[in-house]
């Protein structure tokens, strides 16, 4: 039996949430059937839960605001932003209303709001439809960032976000939608996976668990395929052992489950699709340097997209975004430097 596609898993998770609680709302542009969302994540849901799934005008700020109001009134509200690039239009509602309201009234005000952000490039959509904007939402008090992972049932991640009681952004790599969920610890003929914590927040991908890894790659779900491909070529061609850590929660980052592995590795490398400068990786690297100073053989290596707009033409887009070869080159370069 083949595993379900990631978007099917996501659709099932959303359906599960709507089914379990009639006070759960799903809002966004073009969500309703028969269209079912630009990436089909909501297909069938408006038919099954007509009062809870609401197709909206093209008004990101108002839609996130309405969702914030629903959450303020005690509901659970999920917004799909068609392309995460457009979440900038709702920046005020996310940063100044939803995130602040949790604490700025001098009491704990739960705001159960999840903004889903189809993210990333590699589909030729060009500079305003391909970005990975996670970094712009880091360090906002009250706001948590999660990312879709092929290693974790999205329902578990949704439950975790809702249980947090604060607003969350859920970044979903668009290319990941059509790939398959990984099950039973199997990635491919070479790589296995398991989870470092009981809740399954952090997945670990490994090929050969005999030795301490030469490198630990930390990457969000959207980078998994490129990271695995890089790890494979490094193992087969360079005899470098990489393990890959895929956290479902990007920020605030929980280091406890990953520290033992990080301590064992010759190199730690954080990989992401964001453009250079002020990145998620830079934040993680700074924290890791603080936690493991004196144990690290070399600085944490950052791999990210170039400091550039993301071109539409496939060959130009490839030259900007992280490729498996980018990761491999970076790891080898860092390991070559004592």
């Amino acid at each position, binding site marked *: 039996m083949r595993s379900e596609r990631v978007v099917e898993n996501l659709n099932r998770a959303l359906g599960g949430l709507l089914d379990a609680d009639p006070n759960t709302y799903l809002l966004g542009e073009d969500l309703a059937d028969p269209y079912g969302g630009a990436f089909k994540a909501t297909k069938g849901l408006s038919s099954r839960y007509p009062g809870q799934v609401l197709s909206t005008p093209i008004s990101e700020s*108002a839609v996130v605001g309405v969702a914030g109001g629903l959450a*303020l009134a005690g509901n659970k509200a999920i917004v799909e932003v068609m392309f995460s690039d457009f979440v900038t239009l709702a920046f005020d*509602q996310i940063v100044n209303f939803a995130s602040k*309201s949790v604490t*700025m009234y001098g009491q704990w005000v739960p705001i159960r709001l999840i903004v889903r952000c189809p993210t990333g490039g590699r589909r030729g959509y060009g500079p305003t439809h391909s970005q990975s904007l996670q970094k712009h939402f880091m360090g906002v008090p009250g706001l948590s960032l999660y990312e879709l992972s092929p290693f974790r049932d999205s329902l578990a991640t949704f439950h975790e976000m809702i249980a947090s009681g604060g607003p969350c952004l859920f970044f979903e790599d668009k290319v990941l939608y059509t790939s398959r969920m990984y099950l039973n610890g199997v990635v491919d003929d070479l790589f296995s996976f398991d989870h470092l914590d009981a809740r399954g927040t952090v997945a670990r991908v490994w090929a050969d668990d005999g030795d301490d890894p030469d490198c630990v790659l930390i990457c969000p779900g959207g980078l998994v395929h490129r990271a695995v491909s890089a790890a494979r070529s490094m193992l087969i061609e360079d005899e470098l052992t990489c393990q890959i850590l895929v956290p479902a929660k990007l920020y605030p980052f929980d280091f406890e489950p990953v520290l033992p592995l990080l301590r064992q590795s010759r190199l730690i490398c954080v990989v992401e699709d964001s453009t250079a400068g002020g990145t998620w990786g830079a934040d993680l690297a700074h924290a890791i340097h603080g936690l493991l100073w004196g144990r690290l053989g070399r600085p944490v290596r950052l791999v990210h997209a170039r400091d550039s707009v993301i071109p539409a033409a496939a060959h130009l887009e490839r030259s900007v975004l992280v490729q498996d070869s980018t990761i491999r080159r970076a790891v080898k370069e860092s390991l070559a430097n004592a």
Partner: protein
Amino acid sequence: MSEHDLERLLLIRHFENKLLELFEQGRLHGTTHTCLGQEYIPVALGALLKAGDHVFSNHRGHGHYLARFDDPDGLLAEIMGRSGAVCGGVGGSQHILRDRFLSTGVQGESLPVAAGVALHLKRRSPGEVALVHIGDGTWGQGVVYETLNIARLWSLPLLVVVENNKIAQSTEVSAHMAGTIADRAAAFDIGYHFCDSILPDVIRAELGPLVRKVRETPMPLIVEFDTYRVGPHSKGDDTRDRVALRRAADHDWYVRFRQAMPERFGAVDRRQRTRVAAVADAVAARPLSGGSNAF
């Protein structure tokens, strides 16, 4: 005019005056926006609201709060960062949450939030409304139009109260708004009412049936109040010329009501002035607020 209305109007007036006085004395920290001249709007609307209705306020929100809660102590403590503050001193003048009252400091931000609450009310407790106060300047924000569009499309019980004091901070309405609010409402096919009375009873008589329609249909409604800001935008930042200031002062309900009923007014005026003075002394003597565990 009821005794209650007069008491509440003068409570707000003396509260705001006291804030400006405390600022001048250097006893207040940060900023504040007083509603001098506009106090009658929330006082008038108060009688039209039910306990289940939500009120969304803005940066100029002290009057909105005091019209709903007879709690000058809690509000002043919030502004002064003293114990007994409504929000532990975290929110301050512009960020208050108490029961179904919420204010935030960014223009237009609370309009879609109010629409979301209105959607909730429509589903879960029909007959209740979400009232949101905005000003003429708020119409510069795109999210206002996004929200009106949605509110009409989804038939939300959203009561938009526009306090058109004809000035946005320092910018005259003629310089910041093309067209009219009435035409904007028409463009969205949303009910609209213009109100230039300062008499609470008159206002209630005009709006009563309209608000009932908002509850029962349900349907959004825009009410535009023709009003005047008697004081500065914040504190000591009034750049209006003498003519404009004269015009605002001429419309001040305080002067008109005092002339109309000097004896009754004088008694209440003294009572509220004394009350606010006592509140200010008592709050200033309290220990600093402990903040909260939340932030």
